[in-house]
């Protein structure tokens, strides 16, 4: 091959690699959540509806064990709403559904839309904690000065590692009102 052809080969390969690496940033987005979910690195609770896995026969003590579930709520920076769990903690028997409410009040004079983002510790509990209904599944819109009790229905499956006795579920409330000024 002549010199210009050899150079062209380097340009094409080098340019292609550069383009791939640029695209890699964007491609990593779905890949990143996949990795986080698969490895349990992420402390965010998967927000998809997951079905409890097949329950194995085991000793009754393990099947009827109770787990303490604690709830916390935080407003993201500058968020004026009132937002807290009505039940601070609850004892749940594994395999049984439990229902709690979070209180939210729009304290402002205008209609606002919010999104709650969950996070959970310990990470070992994430794949065994199943939300059946959650206010975090979709955005919540409240008119000015309106309050609401928002439900969360969940259960914990029996495969939860036995060293996990307490699970803490934290929600952070973000303002996602369309066209809201940047904060």
């Amino acid at each position: 091959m002549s010199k210009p052809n050899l150079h062209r080969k380097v340009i094409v390969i080098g340019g292609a690699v550069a383009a791939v690496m640029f695209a890699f940033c964007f491609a990593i987005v779905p890949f990143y959540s996949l990795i986080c979910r698969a490895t349990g690195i992420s402390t965010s609770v998967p927000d998809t509806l997951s079905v409890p896995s097949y329950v194995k026969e085991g000793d009754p003590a393990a099947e009827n064990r109770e787990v303490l579930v604690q709830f916390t709520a935080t407003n993201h920076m500058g968020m004026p709403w009132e937002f807290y769990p009505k039940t601070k903690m609850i004892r749940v028997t594994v395999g049984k559904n439990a229902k709690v409410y979070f209180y939210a009040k729009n304290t402002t004079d205008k209609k606002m839309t919010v999104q709650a983002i969950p996070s959970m510790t310990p990470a070992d509990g994430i794949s065994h904690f199943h939300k059946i209904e959650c206010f975090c599944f979709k955005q919540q819109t409240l008119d000015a000065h309106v309050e609401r009790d928002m439900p969360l229905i969940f259960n914990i499956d029996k495969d939860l590692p036995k060293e996990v006795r307490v699970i803490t579920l934290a929600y952070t409330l973000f303002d996602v009102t369309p066209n809201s000024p940047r904060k």
Partner: protein
Amino acid sequence: MTHEHQHAHGHDHAHDHDHVPHHHSLKHGILPWMKGWMSTTNHKDIGTLYLLLSLAMLFYGGTMALLIRMQLFEPGGMLVEKVFGHAFDPNTYNVFVTVHGLIMVFGVIMPAFVGLANWMLPMMIGAPDMALPRLNNWSFWILPFAFSLLTISLFVSGGGPNFGWTLYAPLSSTYGPPSTDYLIVAIHLMGISSVLGAINIIATIINLRAPGMHWMKLPMFVWTWFITAFLLIGAMPVFAGVVTMILFDRHFGTTFFNAAGGGDPIMYQHLFWFFGHPEVYIMILPAFGIVSEIIPTFARKKLFGYEFMVGAVAAIAFLSYIVWGHHMFTAGMAVGTQLYFMYVTMLIAVPTGIKVFNWVGTMWGGSMTFETPMLFAIAFVILFSIGGFSGLMLGITPADYQYQDTYFVVAHFHYVLVAGALMSLFAATYYWLPKWCGRYYNEKLGKLHFWLTVIGVNVTFFPMHFLGLAGMPRRITDYALQYTTFNEVCTIGAFIFGFSQLIFLYNVISTMRGKGERATAHVWEGSHGLEWTLSSPPPYHSFNTPPVVK
């Protein structure tokens, strides 16, 4: 530059090695001069442009460093208050820190290494020029625009970029000032320039080696640049991509790094450091190459363990892609992942240790002389090792929880980037300046510059280790009283270091203007390689017929 221009006519231009282009002197008017430098495709011209840009940026970024050190001389920014009437407000201080970092990384270290590559690679491998000369011209002339944009961003209403050179989201996305957009475009331009430059370097080294210049005969500087070019192509586009995502988050309603929309700010850190760690090796591998050229010259011995040196550089480059997590141990990471990143980080010490061992092995039993380049090279080996060791300390996960975000980190990366990369650049400049200009620099001033620099660097950055261990956080405008004395020492050192660079500036400019003793082709007694077979200064077009390497 010192050549008479009287025999340009009546010569066959293709073989006229003494032909001096019009733009090398102002004798033909300012317009041909400007046009010549802007359209030049000559690797030596472009190398010179890169190096001069880098020198100018060194004083730009250095001024900001001195302003930072002035603010930190006493608690409350008292010195700045005495000099300027009021202390810098925290935002201004943050802007200084951000722009200092960006200028030093992308404006000083990287362009200087690319400049050296432009000047030296073709001469070292016996090529007439770079493979893609017109692309080469572009990659340089993009940079002044990039740095103008970065400078303009300082004066946009809302203040300059103030989130540190890492541009962490959401500081740069949700909370970034309007000037962030200028910075993002500037980063795109720098990225394009680097990638084009890297492609050019790879094409040159693969295709233009002289007959007989086999891979394992390549000078170490060529090898390190060859590998660095791959790091540039792999890493810079990631940086360009991630700042593009920031731009999308800022203006186009995406939420890549915003938890409210299902994004994750931690992902920004992963992507940034996936670029950021190769980037630190982009800034140090060519330095390894320079030192591997200089030490054999002045020890009058062949480089000890050449094959291992090549292997070590390749190993470091590979490892650089898989250790990024050690920059974010405390950002939230599973224990197993932390352990993985800790172990692979420790692994980098092995090839790096091979390099340091081989440099010392090269000096061992050599007949050494201590000209300025050699002094800088030896200081590089010692001080870079200190930076490497503090890096190992930071790589230990449990210890990092204590050290992270303190002045210990600041001390660490200034030891590798200032005492490492910048010192190697001084060494390279003194080493090759007689080759470029045909004149020796002033050796007395060179030695004075060396001693003031090495003392200044250590007085500035060594106390920062102790400040960090004592708990002083980085990126703050003010600090508790107990840190005062050491901060005063740092600031005094910074001013010694900063102002001694004026000696360097004078020495370089006076050598360029033709002061000093005429240099021989060989320049140094122990020099070895193709570039030393050319006259000093080398003809404008060298190696039109390839030399044969035996």
